């Protein structure tokens, strides 16, 4: 029991993997894991760095609020969109944010089903990232209608005085259902995972307010064996449900494009290539967040090099799938022998937006190949830089898909160009502020690593056979 090496044969509990960095640094016990993670939340002093970071993020969030207020006042004319490019930044940003969210669900659900122990210390904040990213994503389809309260009747099926109902043959309605289901299920999954930790915070909080608030949220959780049994069943079922859900969400998002007959959108590779791209960008965002968080809060014992390396490998694989998607797009366009389809890649390679296309190839395909090298995967600064580059590359990908396809359609007389305005940028940057503000609040008030799950993977958690 005391000797951690005896668990080497058991990959689910192994603290020290063969020749690889551990999932948890050796020497931790139930008590130290609990105290270390909960003290970040329960300490009375808020670090100065937190205040600076939060205030900066909150300032940007206010840029978003001002941008939305001005949009509602003036209308979508403040953006660069017009016919033929009716979908600009709003849809680019929507797809980008929702894609980022997918890594959280992937880490919490799919890796749980695959019994990947290393997910344990990153799943909580990856799920929080999912929620906040979906919140940012959800803003765009609503505000791109201009006056959302006038759009409600064709977005949601509710009995209205006009007797009008949504059009269920449209992928845009599928999207409403997919994204709202995704937001709901992600929130449920996250909250269920939090219940035991909220109980820990209730029991450890020194302040009356803390005990009351965490106590109310923990709902009287007491760690009963019966409760744990049902809890585990529910958690596993949720993971099983969330796995097809996460694949379906980005598939439906890709249908928004693929169901249309526009050259550059109307292609069957879109669903798998969108899902791979979503996971790619999501893992890039998890790395972008995990690297500073583990350094600032001193969590290198829990978010180890093993986690960073594994995420780098997932990025490498999904990045190659995305690269395959780009090749297939170009090949099918050529193979179709349809001159409108064949024009799409030519326009992307050499047209007005060619710089964005080549920048996307550089960011998504060329630079991430550095991850083949062990030295790069072992270097925290390199991983951070590559993750940010992939975030940029995936945003450019959505820009290329949305804008280059729309600006040159069948009729040359209706060709046009799109340039984002100040309000396009301010709305986009504002959602980053909203995202970071929510993330800062989460880091301060909720445990960013699942304490209960960390206890369960410690060597002392194993019941020895009599």
């Amino acid at each position, binding site marked *: *029991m005391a000797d951690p090496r005896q668990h080497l044969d058991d990959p689910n509990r192994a603290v020290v993997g063969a020749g690889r960095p551990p999932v948890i640094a050796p020497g931790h*016990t*139930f*008590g130290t894991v*609990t105290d270390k993670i909960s003290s970040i939340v329960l300490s009375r002093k808020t670090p100065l760095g937190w205040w600076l970071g939060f205030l900066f993020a909150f300032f940007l969030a206010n840029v978003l609020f001002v941008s939305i207020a001005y949009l509602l006042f003036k209308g979508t004319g403040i953006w660069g969109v017009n016919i033929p490019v009716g979908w600009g930044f709003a849809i680019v940003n929507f797809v980008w944010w929702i894609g980022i969210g997918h890594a959280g669900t992937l880490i919490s659900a799919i890796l749980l089903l695959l019994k990947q122990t290393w997910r344990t210390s990153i799943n909580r904040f990856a799920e929080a990232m999912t929620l906040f990213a979906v919140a940012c994503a959800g803003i765009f389809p609503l505000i791109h209608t201009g006056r959302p309260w006038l759009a409600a009747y064709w977005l949601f*099926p509710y009995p209205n005085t006009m*007797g009008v*109902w*949504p*059009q*269920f*043959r449209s*992928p845009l*309605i*599928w999207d409403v*259902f*997919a994204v709202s*289901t995704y937001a*709901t*299920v992600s929130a*449920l999954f996250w*909250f*269920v995972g939090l219940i*035991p930790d909220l*109980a*820990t915070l*209730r*029991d*450890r909080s020194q302040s009356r307010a803390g005990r009351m608030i965490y106590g109310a949220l923990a*709902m*009287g*959780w*007491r*760690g*009963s*064996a*019966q409760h*744990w*049994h*049902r*809890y*585990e*069943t*529910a958690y596993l*079922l*949720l993971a099983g*449900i*969330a796995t*097809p*859900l996460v694949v*379906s969400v980005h598939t*439906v998002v890709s249908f928004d494009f693929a169901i249309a007959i526009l050259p550059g959108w109307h292609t069957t590779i879109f669903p798998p290539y969108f899902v791979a791209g979503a996971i790619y960008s999501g893992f890039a965002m998890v790395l972008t967040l995990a690297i500073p968080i583990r350094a600032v809060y001193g969590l290198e014992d829990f978010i180890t090099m093993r986690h960073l390396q594994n995420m780098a490998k997932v990025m490498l694989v999904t990045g190659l799938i995305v690269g395959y998607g780009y090749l297939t797009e170009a090949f099918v366009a050529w193979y179709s022998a349809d001159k409108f389809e064949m024009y799409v890649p030519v326009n992307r390679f050499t047209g007005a937006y060619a710089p964005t296309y080549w920048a996307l190839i550089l960011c998504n395909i060329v630079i991430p190949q550095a991850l083949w090298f062990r030295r790069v995967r072992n270097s925290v600064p390199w991983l951070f830089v590559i993750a940010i580059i992939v975030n940029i590359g995936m945003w450019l990908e959505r820009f290329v898909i949305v804008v280059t396809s729309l600006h040159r359609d069948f009729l040359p007389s209706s060709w046009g160009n799109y340039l984002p305005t100040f309000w396009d940028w301010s709305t986009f940057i504002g959602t980053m502020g909203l995202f970071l503000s929510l993330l800062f609040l989460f880091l301060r008030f909720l445990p960013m690593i699942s304490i*209960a799950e960390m*206890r*369960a993977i410690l060597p*002392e*958690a*194993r*019941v020895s056979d*009599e």
Partner: protein
Amino acid sequence: MKTPAIYGLLAEFEDPTSLVSAAERTHHAGFRNVDAYSPYPIEELHEALGSHHTRLPLIVLIGGLVGCLGGYALQYWVSVLAYPINVGGKPFHSWPAFIPVTFECTILGAALSAVLGMLALNGLPQPYHPVFNVPRFALASRNRFFLCIESKDPKFDLEATRQFLETLNPREVTTVAD
């Protein structure tokens, strides 16, 4: 004045192995109103207490089916009965186009019933429970393991049960006020 009501006797253990073996011996000794508390899920504990399987998977299946049928029925009713519109000559009942929303509604129904079903079967939210009257029980969410024999058990006798619990090598046995 009557003596204060007693909910049960609570024994504290320092590691999961002691708790599981204590739970097994308590079950063998014939106690049935027993619960064990741990800071993380212990698979063996549930079996040691002789508990049966949970009905939760059935609830989730029913929730998923209700979501599936409800989602499809909503689309059929809207597209065929309430608001039939000819779009590109497609049939009103264009079922392939209804699959994505049906799928999402299935997921939503199953997920909601998994969470609400788990909470309902567990009797949560529960604002008051007697075990919290024991100050050291706060450690059940940190690093300690507890076994409680409840006074409603037919075999419960304050002195005899306390002596039985002492034989399981606990760190401490406490009386839990109701």
